[in-house]
C-alpha cells in the first residue's frame, strides 16, 4: 500500500485513492475516431516511470497526476488537476 502525496491533503494511504488511467490515454473531447481509439486502446505500459491519473476518491475527491515508477513504486511527483482552487 503506497503513500500518495495528495497535493491537497498531504501524504495519504493508497486505500483512499483510485487509479483512473495514464495521462497519455486521456481521450480529448475533440479527438478523431482514430486518435481516440489509439489513446483508449494502446499504452506505453513502461517498466519505468509513467504519468498516471489518480483520484483521492475517499479523501478530498480531487484528481491528480502521479509520476510513478511501475517497478519500485517511487512517486517522483504529484500534481493537482482541476479548476483552480483557493489555497
Amino acid at each position, binding site marked *: 500500500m503506497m503513500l500518495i502525496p495528495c497535493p491537497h491533503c498531504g501524504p495519504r494511504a493508497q486505500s483512499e485513492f483510485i487509479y483512473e488511467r495514464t495521462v497519455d490515454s486521456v481521450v480529448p473531447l475533440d479527438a478523431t475516431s482514430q486518435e481516440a481509439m489509439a489513446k483508449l486502446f494502446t*499504452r506505453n505500459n513502461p517498466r519505468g516511470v509513467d504519468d498516471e491519473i489518480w483520484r483521492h476518491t475517499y479523501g478530498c475527491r480531487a484528481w491528480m497526476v502521479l509520476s510513478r515508477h511501475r517497478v519500485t513504486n517511487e512517486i517522483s511527483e504529484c500534481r493537482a488537476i482541476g479548476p483552480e482552487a483557493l489555497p
Partner: protein
Amino acid sequence: MSRYSAFSLLRGALTGHRHWQPAWRDPEPKSHYDIIIIGGGGHGLATAYYLAKVHGLTNIAVLEKGWIGGGNTGRNTTIVRSNYRLEPLHNFFEFGLKLWHGLSDELNYNVMFSPRGAMFLGHSDADMVKLAERGDAMRCDGIDADLLTRDQVAKLEPLLDMSRDARFPIQGGLIQRRGGTARHDAVAWGYGRGADSLGVDIIQKCEVTGFVRDGGAVVGVETTRGRIGAGRVGICVAGHSGHVAGLAGLKLPVESQTLQAMVTEGVKPMINSVIMSQSLHCYISQSDKGGVVFGGDPDNWPSYAQRGHPMVMEGAVAQGLALVPALSRLRMVRTWSGVTDMSFDGAPIIGETPVPNLFLNGGWCYGGFKATPASGWTYAHTLATGKPHALNAPFSLDRFERGATIDETGSGPMPNSR
C-alpha cells in the same frame, strides 16, 4: 528421454535413482532457427511442443530470460475451466479443456489435472439467472455445465456457510464438472521435457533485448547470449508483453497489473472443488498437499512490482471467509504475485502484429494458466502457417480499433472504465 512410469520409479528405488536423465537439455543457442518463441512459460513451451508434434517443425528455440515456468505459470491458482459466457471464449477454452484431460498421458508427465469441478456460487435469483445464462450458452455449444440447487451445493461443499441470513446467502451454483485444478509447475516442466525430446532447444537465462529487422520485417532477436536469427518470432511473455513488443516499436492494448494469490498451511481435505462466486471476487481450492489456495481480483492499477497491496488480499480473504467460515483459524503461509497483461476487453490476444514475421500471444489477464494447451496449440498453428487457427481468429490484435472486442463482463476498455 527415459519414459516415466511406476516401473521406472521402482527401478529408481532399487538403484538409488541413478538412472534419471535431465528432463531437458541445456543447449547453446544456434545461429538461426525457423521459429523463435520468446518466453519459456507454459504457453511458450506448449507452443514449441505442438510446433514439433503437430507441425513437424523442430528447428525451434524457446528463449527464457530466467528459468522455465518462473513467470505467471508458477504464480497462479492453477484453476482449469472453460465456463465462459461468450462463444469465442468458451469454444477456445473448451478446446483447451479437452487437451487437459489427456495431457498427463500425452506428455508422459503427470500434471495432476484433477477435474474435481469448478463451481460458481449464486447468491440471489438474479445471480442464478446469470449463471443459468452462462450455463445455457455453454450447453448449447456442447460444453458441460450444470446448475446446482442449494442442497446440491451444500452436499458438495459441506463447509460453505449455507445460512439464509448470510451476507451473501448461497442460493445455488453452476458447476463445470470437467473443470478443476492442475499442478502448475508440472505443466511447464512436462511441456518443456516433451518439446526438448522432440528436438526443441530450450535456452534458459537468455533475455531478448531487441529485434533484428530487415526492412520492416523481423529476422532475428538480440539476446544476452548474442544475436539469433529466425524465420518467425513469437512473443509469449504475458505480463511483460508491453515491454517486449515495445522493443519492436509496438504499443499494445495491455496494461500490466499485479495479481496476488496465497495458500494456507496444509490441512486434511476440507474443500472438494474449486469455489468461485458470481457476486464475490475470490476463488478457493485445496491443493493436494492440503493448502487452501486463495485468489482474488488483481490490484487495480498498473504495476510490474510483483508485490501487491495487503488490503486487496485482506479483502479477498474476507470474502472467502464469508463463504467458508471454517477457514478462519487456518494460517496463510505463503503469498505470491504475478504481473498480468490486462487486455482492454478481458480476452487474450493471439495472432499477427503489424510487424512482418512478428507474432503475439498475450493479454491473458488473470486467466492464462487454464489456456496453456489451447494457447500453445493455436499459437503453434499461427506460427507454423502464418494464419490464425479458427479458434484464435477472433482474438486478433486489431479487434480493438475495429470495434470487435470480446468483452465477457461488458465492462469496457479497462476494469474501471466508463
